C-alpha cells in the first residue's frame, strides 16, 4: 500500500498541519517508507495471535472516585494568551 499526494494533503488538513507542495512530496516519501516497513511485518504469520491494544500486556489501573484537585485557575490562566471573566478566549468559533 502507498499513499497518493492527495491523501497526504488530506491527512495534513485533518491534522491541521500546513504543508507546501514540496513538503507534501517529502512527507509522502516518509509515510510510504513506513508502509513498506509495515508490509514487511505483515509477512509474519500471526494466525491465532490476539491483537494487543497496548505494547505492554498489563491492564488499566483504576482510581477511586474522589476529588483530589483544587482550583488552580489563576495559575493556569496566567500562561493563557487571553482570558476574561474566568474564560479562556479563542478566535471566534462559528457553527
Amino acid at each position: 500500500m502507498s499513499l497518493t499526494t492527495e491523501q497526504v494533503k488530506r491527512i495534513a488538513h485533518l491534522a491541521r498541519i500546513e504543508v507546501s507542495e514540496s513538503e507534501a512530496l517529502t512527507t509522502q516519501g516518509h509515510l510510504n517508507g513506513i508502509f513498506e516497513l509495515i508490509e514487511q511485518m505483515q509477512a509474519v504469520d500471526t494466525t491465532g495471535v490476539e491483537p494487543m491494544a497496548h505494547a505492554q500486556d498489563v491492564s488499566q489501573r483504576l482510581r477511586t472516585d474522589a476529588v483530589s484537585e483544587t482550583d488552580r485557575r489563576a495559575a493556569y490562566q496566567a500562561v493563557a494568551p487571553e482570558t476574561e471573566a474566568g474564560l479562556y478566549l479563542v478566535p471566534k468559533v462559528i457553527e
Partner: protein
Amino acid sequence: MNQWEVVIGIETHAQLATVSKIFSGASTAFGAEPNTQACAVDLALPGVLPVLNRQAVECAIRFGLAIGAHVAPKSVFARKNYFYPDLPKGYQISQMDLPVVVGGQIALQVGQGDKAYEKVVNLTRAHLEEDAGKSLHEDFHGKSGIDLNRAGTPLLEIVTEPDMRSSDEAVAYARALHALVRWIGICDGNMQEGSFRCDANVSVRPKGQAEFGTRREIKNLNSFRFLKEAIDFEVQWQINEIEEGRKIQQATVLFDPDSGETRMMRSKEDAHDYRYFPDPDLLPLIIDEAWMARVRSELPELPQQKRERFVGELGLSVYDAAMLTASQEISEYFESTVAVAGEASAKPCANWVMVDLAGRLNKDGVDIAAAAVSPQQLGGLILRIADNTISNNIAKKVFEALWLGEGATADEVIEKQGLKQITDSAAIESLVDEVLAANAANVAEFKAGKEKAFNALVGQVMKAAKGKANPQQVNDLLKKKLAE
C-alpha cells in the same frame, strides 16, 4: 405520509453519577465558576496522564447488567481526533472497536390506555467517554469564551439499533431509558443541566422497502418534547424533499425550539475522518467475573421485574404496572401504600396513585417526592374504603383534607368531620322512605319504565344523607322498595 415508514435510532449521552472526572480528580459538580474545576489533565497540559475512574466503569457495568447486555471482560479506549477549542487535547477519549457494553434490550410501553402496546428496543452498544468543555459564543471582542469545567466529565453513550418507527416510540424509549439510568443510580437524569441528552438518527423509506433511507442526525435534544417535535418536523421535511424529487444528503442538524425547525449544522464527515486509534496513554480495561458478580448482587429490582411482579402477584394490568414503574419514586410510593392497605387492595391503590394523587400533584405542580399526603396516610384511607367506613366519594374529601393538613390520619379526619358512612339499614331505610314520599313524580316515572328516574332517587337519598350513606345499601333498599 401513509406510504412512508419512519426509521429512528437514538444515541444518548448520560452523564455518570461520579464526584470526580473520568480521567482526573477534578470535581464534576454543576454550576461552578468557569474553569475552577478544570485541572491539568482536563486542560491537556504537557506530561499529564489520564487515570480511569473506577466508579465510572462500575456505572457502565450496572447499566450493562440491567439491560441484559454483554459486559466486555476487556475493552479498549481510543482517541477520536477532531479540532475544536472546547476539546483541549485535540481528541476525545472514547471507545471504538471494543466498547464496554455490547447488545442488550429495553422493553417499553408506547401510547396510552387501550392503544398502549409493548415494544422492545435493541441496543447496539454503550461506551465510556469524556465530555468536552463549553463554548460561549457571546461577544468577547469578537472572540469565543471557553469554560472547561465540563471537559472530562464521564459519559456513557448509549446507542440503539434503528428500531423505532415513530416519534412516539422514540419518546417512549427515551423516557424508559431516562427512568432506568436514574433507577439504577448511574445518572441524575437532569436534562436542564445536560446530564441526559439525545441525538436522533432519522430516515424515511417507502413502506415495504428493505434498505434504509439516508439518515440525518438531530443533535443534542435535551427534552422529551423537543425530541418529539424535532423528529416530527424532520420526518415531514424528508418526505417533502423526496416527494419533490430531491435526494436526502447525510447530515447533522440542530433543532431550533423557537421555530420548531431543524437546520443543517454540518455535512456528516466519514467515521474514519476521526482517525480513531487505541489511546497509548490507557491500557485495556479488564472487568473480571468477581466485579460483575458484586455489581449484579447490588442491583435493585429493575422496572421490568417490578412490572412482572405487579401483574403476576398483585393482579394489575400491564398498563397500570408500566405507569407505576415509570420512576422509582412512583413505584416506592405505590408499594408503601399497598404495604398499609393490603395486597387485596392493590388495584384501588394503583388507581389512587395514578389518578387522584397524580391529579393533585399536577394541580400543585409538585413532584411525588413533595406529596402532601404520605403513602401511609393514603394506605390508611384506602383501608377505610375497603372496610366500608367511607365511600369512594367521601374518600376524595378525606384525601383533600389530608392534603391540606386537616388531620394526621384518615381516621382522624373521618372522626373530626363526621364523615363515617351510614351503614345502619334502619337509618338508611327511613331516609329512603322520606325520599320516596317526597318524590312521587320520580317514582311514577320509574314505574313507567324510565330507568333514569332511579338514579335521580339515589341522588336524592345520598343528598339527604350528606353523601354518607353506603351507596350499595341505598341501591338495594331503593330497588326493594320500588318493587313492592
